């Protein structure tokens, strides 16, 4: 079962990361996103009497990107403290397995989710709460978030920190790379949660947080044995 706190955190994350990705994309891909800059900028431009709705839209995107990033940063810090203090981090459990087993599990999972092949019994019986592909994609996400947040904070306070133009340029590149890594995770995450075999997870996340026991036995047997044995 996913707790209420876990689901609320996920929902906050979902909203903030979506808004940050959209406002960031408006700055990163102005050519592709100018229609959105125009759409959000036009009402305010009309109110301000500005003849440049795209510029007003970009200004809004830039301002809100910084504000939302601050909110997200505070939320992430609080959430990270909660996870660490209450030892709720299970997403990396699959990485404790020997590398050979991890590779075998990753191949079997890819065959299962892409080609529809059944999982071999030994792989199926050793699945943790989060499988090895989820664990590695989370590593990608963590690297992405560290790049995004560290470079973002340093860029916002670059004047006060006395950073050189060269440092700022490097930070901007790292910010982009962080976004691309996060985007990679989001693609994989969306694919996984929208996959038919994971439908109970999707339903649980957006309803009461419960999954059928039978589904849990098939998808996270090792973790279930751990829970049934009295673990957290």
């Amino acid at each position, binding site marked *: 079962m996913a707790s209420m706190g876990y689901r609320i955190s996920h929902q906050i994350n979902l909203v903030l990361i979506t808004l940050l990705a959209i406002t960031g994309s408006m700055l990163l891909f102005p050519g592709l996103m100018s229609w959105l800059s125009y759409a959000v900028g036009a009402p305010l431009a009309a109110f301000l009497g500005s003849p440049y709705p*795209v*510029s007003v839209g*970009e*200004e809004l995107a830039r301002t809100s990107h910084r504000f939302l990033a601050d909110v997200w940063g505070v939320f992430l810090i609080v959430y990270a403290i909660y996870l660490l203090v209450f030892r709720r981090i299970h997403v990396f459990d699959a990485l404790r397995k020997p590398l050979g087993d991890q590779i075998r599990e990753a191949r079997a999972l890819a065959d299962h989710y892409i080609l*529809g092949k059944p999982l071999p019994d030994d792989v199926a019986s050793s699945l943790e709460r989060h499988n090895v592909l989820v664990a590695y994609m989370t590593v990608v996400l963590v690297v992405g978030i560290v790049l995004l947040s560290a470079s973002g904070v340093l860029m916002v306070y670059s004047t006060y920190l006395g950073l050189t133009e060269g440092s700022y*340029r490097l930070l*901007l*590149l790292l910010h982009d790379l962080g976004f691309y890594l996060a985007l990679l995770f989001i693609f994989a995450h969306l*694919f996984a949660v929208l996959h038919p*075999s994971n439908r109970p997870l999707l339903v649980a996340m957006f309803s009461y947080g419960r999954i059928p026991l039978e589904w849990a036995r098939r998808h996270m047997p090792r973790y279930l044995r751990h829970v049934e044995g009295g673990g957290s």
Partner: protein
Amino acid sequence: MTMVAVNPPPADQGFAVLVDIDKCIGCRACQLACKDWNGLAPVKTTFSPTFTNPQSFTAQDWKVVFYYEGTAKKGLATPAGEVVFEQVDVAPLPAQCLHCAAAPCARACPSGAISVTPEGAVVINKDQCIGCGFCENACPYDVPRRGSDGKYYKCTFCVDRIQNGREPACAEVCPTGVFTFGPASQIVQMAQSEAAKGRTVYGLNLNPYVGGQVRWIYVSSDRKAFAIKQHFPSDAVVPTNEAREVLREIVPPLALVGAVALTAVGFASWRRARIEEQKSQQKQKEQ
């Protein structure tokens, strides 16, 4: 076409300037004329080890004469023959935005505030500028500067004067004829012939990042070439921003292909699951 597209004219169209620093006496008339024509406020200056003042461009100083020290070989005719010796020299170099043929600042601007006019002038419209600093980040010559209002400013190539049949203010005022203003095709030809004579030329055959060429082309003899070498980067590129541009080109189509592929795989899985479900239901009915 998008709302923030940049369409610069070809490098051989529009206008250009040939800057012959051998003729420059460092009087700073160009620097003053620029401030005067553009109505730029004076800024508080500081002492420094060089004559350059202010130390670099500011939002109120779009043209600055930089002074460089270097050694130059000189020949002295004596009754015993020519004696060649090295001497320390000071060379003034009047600098401003070089108006790149394919301006990276204009490509980087997210609000479309930087446009390239048919004359080839790269111009910031301050009413559209949102102060993000992406132009400063993209410029290999560190030209755009943030003003006290948070917006960015730089040389406009005096496009308002050009459009009214006049030269840029700095070119018109120069007492020694350092600046030769004219159609880009003619100026490029002049620069090429100067290069053929063995003079140092900066502004042609540059990195594709700036379009391979700029519209303010510098020439000098060996005697003052050190100023050009000290002032301009050997490679007119900002590597980090170039990498960003490459990624920006690659990622959207890759993301689209990835999204379509994952959707197709997901849909196929959904279809397969549905067929299997129907089969099992059929079996149950038959039993």
